[in-house]
């Protein structure tokens, strides 16, 4: 069962992209389940996603990469045993750490007969609000970019060339090895390419040493 996480700060367009990519993957014959997570007690996205006829599970009340990792693993195991998806797309809370989420997903292997693999970690970057976000929530945005395999610069239909270029430079500065793609969730630009990423490629499994190194790079601790 492949886990595909679509990370990104609040308002970066995760839910819109997730719905359209899921529909595309369903058309290609995949059985898709979606997990949405919020640190708060409720999440409005699950009901919206289900209104498109997609299978969605909501996990609320904490972050699935650590505090309620057990609930996440348990939900994956139950989904595997009952719905039998071949791909689970995860919309983590705006504060989840992608490597922590990989580890949490792999916990499900102890709960049922499943082998977890990971699609490339995708992080959405909101080109329209890049300046605002870097002023106010810099650390969160940096972390999500740092742990991405692929960074999607979103809203290119509305963003200026300058905003797109600034987003590109920001990503390059934080994560020089990340692939960068330009997308527009609203106009479905890049949609098939994102579906290809999830369908055809894999990202390494959790490695504690890698996570520690990423955290240390972020905070500069010894």
């Amino acid at each position, binding site marked *: 069962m492949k886990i595909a996480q679509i990370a990104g*700060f*609040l*308002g970066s367009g995760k839910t819109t992209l997730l719905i359209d990519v899921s529909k595309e993957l369903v058309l290609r014959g995949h059985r898709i389940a979606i997990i949405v997570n*919020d*640190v*708060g*007690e*409720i*999440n*409005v*996205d699950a*009901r*919206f996603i289900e*209104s498109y006829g997609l299978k969605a599970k909501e996990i609320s*009340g*904490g*972050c699935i990469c*650590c*505090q309620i990792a057990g609930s996440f693993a348990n939900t994956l195991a139950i989904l595997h045993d009952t719905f039998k998806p071949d791909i689970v797309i995860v919309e983590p*809370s*705006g*504060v989840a*750490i992608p490597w*922590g989420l990989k580890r949490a997903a792999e916990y499900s292997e102890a709960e049922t007969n499943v082998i977890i693999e990971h699609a490339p970690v995708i992080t959405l970057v*909101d080109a*329209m*609000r890049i300046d*605002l*976000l870097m*002023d*106010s*929530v810099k*650390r*969160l945005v940096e*972390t999500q970019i740092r742990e991405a395999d692929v960074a999607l610069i979103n809203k290119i239909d*509305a963003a200026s060339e300058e905003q797109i270029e600034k987003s590109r430079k920001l990503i390059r500065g934080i994560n020089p090895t990340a692939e960068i793609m330009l997308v527009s969730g609203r106009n479905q630009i890049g949609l098939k390419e994102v579906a290809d990423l999830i369908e055809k490629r894999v990202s390494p499994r959790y490695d504690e040493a890698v996570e*520690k190194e990423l*955290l*240390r790079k*972020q*905070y500069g*601790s010894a």
Partner: protein
Amino acid sequence: MEEDDELHLELHRAADELGKFAAKLRIRDDKGMTPERAKKFMDSLLTTVTKECFHDGADLIGHVKAFMNTPTGTMMGSLVDLEIGVQLTPSLERKFHEADITLHVIVHGIWDDKVRDAARRGIEKVIKQYGVKLEVLQDYFETEKSIEHHLKK
């Protein structure tokens, strides 16, 4: 607490720079609400709540979202930038009298208690403007405000 746990916690604490409020609401319109009026209502609700938050000191929208569930269909509304405005995804088929709305507000710059007060003020203004009845089914303030949920047990 181990060093890595502290780093992890520090990152999560960054999330608490964001003020949050959520509520489940039920509105009733005795005259009936058309899909067009429902769209205007949703637009007003999200815009007014957001403006009230900015009035009280918020400087960035995380997201302000609402999902409306009615006997004749559903509608999602999302506001990320006041200049761009509310994005609506309606699938309402005809007039309805009652709707349940899940409202979720996350902004940067003010804490949860201020977000709650501003959101409530915004809700009341819109309810009055549209002349509909309001029942608050659930207010999630008490469960949202704590940093405890970030601490590893």
